[in-house]
Structures are given as structure tokens and as C-alpha cells.
């Protein structure tokens, strides 16, 4: 009986974690987002006032403010586009890699998997900083290009959106490869041979057999890359320039530079809803679809 109780709580522990570190902070953010801002510490008024009897002191001004200024919506759209492009490139590079790893022999497979995971052993910040050193005007890449005579003056490789996309694809690639590998690992290679035997060449076999059967892995990997990239702050901050503003950066500025906590909270809360709601709906529809198709 005691053991059963323990088991029950043990199984539930991830939910305690989720409540403690996601739902409660989210509730606090929501509370701040509907507060009236003021100069002071903290820079917003309480939502429950008791001085002249009980009064609820809330406002939706902050939401009106961020949704009426394209500065905020634009940054969110920029981030969505960045996340889409990065996810696409991660998939483009990650799928063949994951397929190759999954179909190679055990010895090679383990070596390749370790190689995929190795970057996690050093600090994320250091790795992004290393790219900064490689790409800067007198960095190693420009030195090589100059010495080979490919360019006559250093290229501006850093501080633009391309450097940001490269940095994100580099950083998030393992998150795409690992779930894809998990699915492709179980792939029955006889299915590929059967498809070829029935007259489909390699390209048609890929689109008719390999791709449809990899959908769960592609969905898992893409979500794992897409969601965090929308809120990514460090990589655009370090590798990006002023050509494009991203959601994470705007959020940070609103909180720490403008000290507009209610506005920033409204921005954060809207972002989460806009991002999570479609994904939840998608997941429900997708799980129904995959149940129907038994993939």
C-alpha cells in the first residue's frame, strides 16, 4: 500500500515539476501583464487594492499597446520566419544524417551518435562565441578566403540574419537528429527493398515509403527545434546585427531596458499562447490521424 502510494507520486513528479516551474511562473507573468505600470520597484501596481475597501486594479492596456504597435508583432513574425527557416535547414541536413546513422552497422552507428552528442559536452555560450571568432572580419574564415584570393577584402560574415540562421542550425541540429534517429532506427529496411522491387526508383521510394513512415520522427524533431528557436535570445544577440529584430531580443529590452514589466509580460504571455495553442491543436489532430493510420 505504501509502495503504491510512492509509485503514484513518483509517476506524478514530472507534473509537480511542470506546475512549479511552468504554470506558476506563467500565472505570475499573466498577473503582471494585466497590472497597471508605474515608476517604482516593482514597476507595476498590485492588482488587488485594499486601501479604500477592496478593489480590483487590472487593465488590458498592455495587450492593446503591444498589438497596436507593429514593432512587437513584427519581431514575433521575424522570429517565426527564423524558426521556420532554421527548422527547414535542420531537417534538410538532419534527415539524411539520421537515416545514414540508423542504417549503418552497430560499430559505426555508436561512433556517429557520440559525434552528434559531443558538442553538448562544451558550453553552448562558448560554442556560439567560437563562431563569432571564426566569422569576424579578421577571423580564420576571412583569412583563408583572402589568402586563397577568393576575395580581395574581408567579407561581412557576422552580424546579419544569415549568421543567425547558421548559428541556430548548428546549435539545434542534434535536437533534430536524435528524435529522427529514434524513429528511423526502427525502420524496416525490407520496406525500401520491397518498394524498389515493385518498380519504384530511389526518389519515388523516398517519397512514397520512407517519408510517410518518418512523419512521427519529423514532427518530433521539428517541434523540438521550432519552439525554442522562436524565443531564442543568445544567438541573435551574439551573431545577429541590427538588420532584423527578433522576439527574444525585444522581450529582453522591454523587461530590462524599458523596465516595462507589464508590457513585456503581455508580450511574453501572448507569445506563449500564439505558439502553444496551434501546436496543442496540431498535436491532438496529429495523434488522431496517426492512430487512424497506425503509424
Amino acid at each position, binding site marked *: 500500500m505504501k509502495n503504491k502510494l510512492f509509485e503514484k507520486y513518483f509517476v506524478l513528479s514530472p507534473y509537480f515539476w511542470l506546475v512549479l516551474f511552468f504554470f506558476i511562473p506563467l500565472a505570475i507573468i499573466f498577473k503582471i501583464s494585466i497590472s497597471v505600470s508605474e515608476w517604482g520597484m516593482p514597476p507595476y501596481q498590485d492588482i488587488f487594492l485594499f486601501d479604500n475597501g477592496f478593489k480590483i486594479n487590472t487593465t488590458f492596456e498592455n495587450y492593446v499597446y503591444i498589438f497596436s504597435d507593429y514593432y512587437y508583432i513584427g519581431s514575433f513574425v521575424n522570429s517565426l520566419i527564423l524558426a521556420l527557416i532554421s527548422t527547414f535547414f535542420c531537417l534538410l541536413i538532419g534527415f539524411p544524417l539520421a537515416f545514414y546513422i540508423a542504417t549503418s552497422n552497430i560499430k559505426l552507428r555508436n561512433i556517429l551518435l557520440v559525434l552528434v552528442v559531443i558538442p553538448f559536452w562544451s558550453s553552448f555560450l562558448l560554442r556560439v562565441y567560437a563562431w563569432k571568432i571564426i566569422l569576424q572580419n579578421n577571423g580564420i574564415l576571412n583569412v583563408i578566403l583572402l589568402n586563397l584570393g577568393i576575395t580581395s577584402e574581408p567579407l561581412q560574415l557576422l552580424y546579419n540574419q544569415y549568421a543567425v540562421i547558421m548559428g541556430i542550425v548548428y546549435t539545434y541540429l542534434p535536437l533534430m537528429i536524435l528524435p529522427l534517429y529514434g524513429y528511423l532506427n526502427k525502420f524496416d529496411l525490407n520496406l525500401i*527493398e520491397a518498394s524498389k522491387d*515493385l518498380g519504384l526508383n530511389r526518389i519515388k521510394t523516398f517519397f512514397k515509403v520512407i517519408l510517410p513512415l518518418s512523419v512521427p520522427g519529423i514532427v518530433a524533431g521539428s517541434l523540438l527545434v521550432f519552439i525554442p528557436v522562436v524565443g531564442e535570445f543568445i544567438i541573435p544577440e551574439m551573431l545577429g546585427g541590427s538588420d532584423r529584430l527578433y522576439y527574444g531580443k525585444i522581450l529582453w529590452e522591454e523587461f530590462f531596458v524599458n523596465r516595462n514589466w507589464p508590457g513585456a509580460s503581455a508580450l511574453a504571455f501572448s507569445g506563449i499562447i500564439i505558439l502553444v495553442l496551434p501546436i496543442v491543436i496540431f498535436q491532438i489532430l496529429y495523434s488522431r490521424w496517426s492512430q487512424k493510420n497506425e503509424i
Partner: protein
Amino acid sequence: MDNNFLVVENISKSFGDNKVLENINLNISKSEFFGLLGSSGSGKTTLLRILGGFEKPDTGRVILDGTDITNLEPFDRPLNYMFQSYALFPHLNVFNNLAFGIKENFTQKEIEINVRDIAELLSIEHLLKRRIKQLSGGEQQRVALGRCLIKKPKLLLLDEPLAALDKKLRSKTQLELTTLQKKLKITFVFVTHDQEEAMSLSDRMAIMKNGLILECSSPEEIYENPKSLYTANFIGIANIIEIYKKGENFYSDDLGINFKLNKELKNIKTNILLRPEKIKIQSINNLKTSSFNSFSGEILEKSYLGSFTRYEIKIKNMIISVLDQNFYSNSNYNFPKGEKVICSWESESIKVLED
């Protein structure tokens, strides 16, 4: 009959240092049901995969209906391959699995007609809308077969076609498969490790061992007149006795009896095969032992198999297996354990093994 429909010429194949096939030669006729029989590691599946185009041979050629297909990709070969695991597409229903190979070149209407026809042939019309996971093993086997046959291949390759079915279903499917093959007149080449399956399906079969073909003939010929000791042991139950020439006749030290053969021997010493059902078993009271081709022994073990009773009879240094048909329904006609019996056989039943 033209036995050059499928020609396998000097095929060799190694995986690293491991020689899997060594100089394989085969000639298979049109509409033949041909079996490749061997234990695991004999190279039979590799040979089938070379025919299917999934492996490239190191040397040699494969010629199908006059065309050299050795270097063709699987999707360019006019043949189909049925996988042991069936390899049905789990994301498609039965209809789309059947139509998979003809979708490219046919109109929607033609596809539907073809699928209905093949489903009718295999009696799976009622399954067309099902998912693969909702099918039983036997149903999956039919869909896999149908998916190949719908392409009207010149040659159908089957990898252990019945291995995944349970025993009762297997014998039923065996019969259906032979009937179907005779009806469609498509050349079938299949691989199996099960000698019964090989014998009941094949018109001719090849016995494979360590990448070599030991013998290639009809099941009857291989069972009755095996050339090698390995084949004799591999197919059916075999009593192998070593004999040598002694005067007019031949003598076995292990049994301590004389053999009379109706043919001359090349070697002084040789192994002979005596199939257990060729031995007549009689009560010792009925008659006396003859001076050759018979012995008296004691029943050591007895197992009742329904249509037959199998006896293990000890004589001198050897144990001989005898299969006795249960002709009478009275169990008294069975010999009890420990009883002394007389065993005898015809001279023609003794088969000399060449190696």
C-alpha cells in the same frame, strides 16, 4: 522443355573474408517451381537476393528469358520478390498495398480492375479496406503474394514463403501455392530451410551447403537416390551404414551382417543409405533370418506417430530406425519395447552414397 529460362552462371559472392557463394550454376525452366533448400548460412538467401537485385555478385551472370539482368537495379527487373517478413507497407491499406506496384503505369480504373482480379484470385476481396495490422499472418501472406503477382512478373522469388505461418495453415497454404503456380504458369524460385516444404512445393530443388550446390534434382530423385552423405542425412530420416567388399557380398562390421547389392562398387569401402520405411519388420516367430539383407534385433525405442510407428532397433553396435505403417487398426500388431524382431529389405532399397 527449354531449361534456359533462368540461367545462373558462375555466381560467386563474398562478404569480407566470408565466402557466401562459390561458383553457382543453375538452369531453371519456364513455369518451373524451383526450391533452394539449405540450413542457415548455406547461402540460399544470398543467392535469392542476387536474383532479386538486392546484392551484386562478385563474379558471374544472371540471365532471365534471354536478357542479362546481372547489373539491373531491382526496379528495372521483370521479376518480383516476396519477403519472409512480407514487408507490407504499414501506412497503406490492403488495396493500396496491392496497387503499389502498378499505380505508375495504369489509370485509376485499370488499377481497380487489376486489384479486384488479384483479390478474387487470392480470396481476399473482403480485406481490401483493412490496415495491414488488422490482418492475420495468413492474410498478410496473401497480400504480399498478391502485391507481387499483380505485376505479372516473369519470375517470382519467395523467401521462406510459409515460415511465418502456423503448422496447420502451412500445409493448406502449400497446396494453394502449388495450385496457383500451376494455374498462372509463372516461374517460382523459393528458399526454405524446411525439407518437407521444399519437397512438397518443388518440381525440382537444389540442396545448398556452405555456398555450394550439392545436388539439383526432383524431390523424389533426391530422396530416393541422394548422391552425398549430407543430402541423405538432410532429407528425411537416414540409416547410414558403412560396408566393404567381402567375397561375393558386402559386409558391415557395425551390424555384423551381409549385404547383397545389385550393382558393383567403385570403392572397396563405402557408405550405403537405407531409408527407414524400406525396412520390413516382422515377428521373430514368423521366419528365420536370411544370410543377407536381414537381421534380427531388439526394439530399443518406439514412438507411435498415428499413421506410422517409428522403431529404434538395436543390433550389435548400431541403432537402426524403422518406420512401419500401421496397416491394422488393432494395436496388438505393434511390437512392444524389448521385443526381438526380424528386419529385412530388398536389394534395390540399398542406395550407395558416392561421397
